């Protein structure tokens, strides 16, 4: 079983596919769930305090906008944990969407830098590509090995 970072990290479809193959998806849902469990605050956006952009300095310098650093405080630790990654480029908004293009560029770069198994795919534009798309993801997840 591998920890698989999914991009877009908000994609429930990808998260589900990873889980069905016995792996652990590293996604927004995980980060947000962890944060909701912290005491005293109500909704996910409010879980982010001015401290998070400071924690994000580990992945992005101080001249990088606060929103990028705040996001990296969530995704950075997950990228470090990742044992594999699935990157879907130019995904439809409904498939899964992450708000900041600069953060997305940084996340994809950091994943590509890591020496881990990676699947880098473009989002399908028609049914035929869709079938190949799902097959490629299944094949990749299968090759990562079964539950340990």
């Amino acid at each position, binding site marked *: 079983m591998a920890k698989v970072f999914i991009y877009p990290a908000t994609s429930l479809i990808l998260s589900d596919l990873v889980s069905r193959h016995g792996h652990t998806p590293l996604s927004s849902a995980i980060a947000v769930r962890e944060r909701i469990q912290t005491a005293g605050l109500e909704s996910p956006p409010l879980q982010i305090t001015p401290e998070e952009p400071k924690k994000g300095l580990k992945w992005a310098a101080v001249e990088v906008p606060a*929103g990028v650093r*705040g996001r990296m405080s969530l995704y950075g630790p997950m990228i470090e944990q990742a044992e594999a990654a699935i990157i879907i480029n130019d995904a439809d908004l409904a498939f899964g969407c992450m*708000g900041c*293009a600069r953060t997305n560029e940084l996340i994809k770069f950091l994943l590509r830098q890591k020496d881990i198994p990676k699947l880098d795919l473009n989002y399908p534009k028609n049914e035929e590509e869709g079938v190949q798309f799902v097959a490629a993801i299944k094949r990749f997840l299968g090759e990562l090995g079964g539950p340990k």
Partner: protein
Amino acid sequence: MTPPVRIAQLSCGADYSGVQREIEEAAREVNGEIFFPDIALKDIRKDFDAFGLDVRSPDLKLAIARAKALVEGRVEADAVFIATCFRCAEAAIVRNELRHYINENSKLPVVSYSFTERTTSGTLLTRMEALTTIARRRALLARETQQGITLGLDSGSATTKAIVMKDNKIIGTGWQPTTEVLKSAHAVIDAALSEAGITMKEVQAIGTTGYGRFLVGKDINADLIQEELTVNSKGAVYLADRQHGPATVIDIGGMDNKAIAVMDGIPGTFTMGGICAGASGRFLEMTAKRLGVDITELGPLAMKGFSGRVPMNSYCIVFGTQSLVNALAAGSTREDVAAAACHSVAEQVFEQQLQEVDIKEPVIMVGGTSLIEGLVHAMGELLQTKVVVPHHSQYIGSVGSALLASGFIKEH
């Protein structure tokens, strides 16, 4: 209780920067309510394509679609707050274009802001207050003449000013540097009343503005306590006799600067702030001190000099002062240094703030710094226009307050 003013938030990064709570708190403090215009996913694609600004960030695409929904009346709001991360070039382009688009195509008041994780509700309060004032008090802001006897007080960061008005005329003035807020306020009120030859009992309504407006307003039982963005705009067009049509009001203050695009005396878009004191009146005060002249003499001195002879960029007050000292040590004349200081402040305001509002003539400069001739001249050169400085321009907040306060006389 008055229903809250509904402020539509168009933003990118506010939640992930940890400032969303601050934005909502600032709105709540002035009885405003932040909401996110509710739109369908299919509208994001359609509206984003129709707008034509091909940005990459999905949250900016969402902001664009929400702006279109507001302008086209698919979502109702009283005001708009546009906020994006400081230092994001993509977001800065969207922020400016959305502000411009909403301003041109609707009557919604807009304020735009670029935040860092250090932005607090206190920083946003005056801006939010101005938004809610414009939305809630349009009738009051439409007032064009002063009636009865009213007192206006401006408790500013550097100076405190008071004005007494009677039947649309200024009959008393008071001015002094702000030390203890209440003490300074009472001193200038006494001076203004004394000059007017009336007593406090004869005053029919009182208005306060400026940083100390709440404290002083409560102390003297003011009828109107209102932020300086709307009050100064009103005072500026009133004194300059440009109450109808467009105008741009520039107020370079002691602590921060205001640039306001006005239509019929009511602000449409505005910016407030400044990166550093190097772009404020405080730098000119320091320049005057270093040159050994009174602040009132700095303007005429600057008019005799040529700013191009002294390299100065007062982005920061410390480095600006260093340039000033270096120039004097290298043999530059006091006149040239004074002119360079004025040009530097005007340039900072021009580059950092005036790009965020649509400059429309007449350009009216107000506040104490508008009396510094060299600064007004430098601003006029940068804007390629003749800048209007109305009489009593240093009392602008007090005049605006006294004018607007007369709307409360009937209630007594």
